[in-house]
C-alpha cells in the first residue's frame, strides 16, 4: 500500500507525521519550513521511506482541493491495482 501524507500549506506538519509513522525522530527533519517548501516546488509525491508493514510513505501537496486530490490519487491506484491511502494534515 502507498500512504500519502497530503498537506495544503503546512509541509512541516506533514513531514512530522510521516516521520512519526516511519518511527523516525522528527527532530531529524533537516530543514526549516521555508526551505522545505522551496525544496518541494516540483509537483510530485515525494518518497520518504517504507514503514514496518512495508507500506511506502510519501509526502505531497494536495493543491487547491483535497477531495479532488484524494479521488484522483486513489483512482489511479485503483486503475493499477495498488491500494492508496491519503492522509490530510492540516
Amino acid at each position, binding site marked *: 500500500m*502507498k500512504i500519502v501524507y497530503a498537506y495544503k500549506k503546512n509541509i512541516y506538519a506533514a513531514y512530522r507525521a510521516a516521520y512519526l509513522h516511519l518511527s523516525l525522530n522528527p527532530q531529524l527533519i533537516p530543514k526549516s519550513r521555508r526551505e522545505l517548501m522551496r525544496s518541494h516546488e516540483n*509537483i*510530485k*509525491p515525494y*518518497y520518504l521511506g517504507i514503514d514496518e508493514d512495508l507500506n*511506502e510513505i*510519501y509526502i*505531497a501537496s494536495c*493543491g*487547491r*482541493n483535497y*477531495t*479532488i*486530490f*484524494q*479521488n*484522483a*490519487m486513489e*483512482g*489511479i*491506484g*485503483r*486503475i*493499477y491495482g*495498488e491500494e*492508496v491511502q491519503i492522509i490530510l494534515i492540516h
Partner: protein
Amino acid sequence: MKIIYSCFGGAHSSVVTAAIHMGYLPNNSLPSKEEILAVPFYDKAQNNEIGIPHYMGKDQNNHIIYIMGMGHARDYYTEMLYEFYNEVAPYNNKDIIIINVTSLLNNYTRLGGFMSRRLNIISLGRPLTVFGIQKNYFYFAELVKNLKERIN
C-alpha cells in the same frame, strides 16, 4: 493503453469526447440532443465525484477509456497524476494518457453545467449544455481523430 479524458467536472465535455472515441456518438455528423443525453455519465457527475476516474469502456483497439473531472487546477492534478503513475506502475512503458478537453468548451456548456450540476437547475442547464456541445461538436471529434491517429 489507458486514456483518461478530463474536464472540469467530468460531466459534459470529457463524457462526449470519450463517447466519440468509443463510437457511442458519430465522428462525422452532428448528433441529436437525444443521442447526447443518452450517453452514459452525461450530466450525471456530482461535485464530490470530481477526481474519480470513471470507466467508459474499451475501444476497438483495446484501449481503456476513462473520464474524470479535475476542477480548476487541472494542470496541477494532471502533472501530479503522471508523477504518481510513475510510482504506482514504474515498470509499465507509459501506458496512460491524460487529455484535458476543457479548452474545447464554450460558455454555453460552462453556464449550463454550472446551472445543472452546481445550482441543480437541471431543466434549464442540461439543454444548454447540449446546445453548447453541439456548437463545438466537431472540435471534439477532431481531437479524437488526431489522438487515434497518434496512438494506433
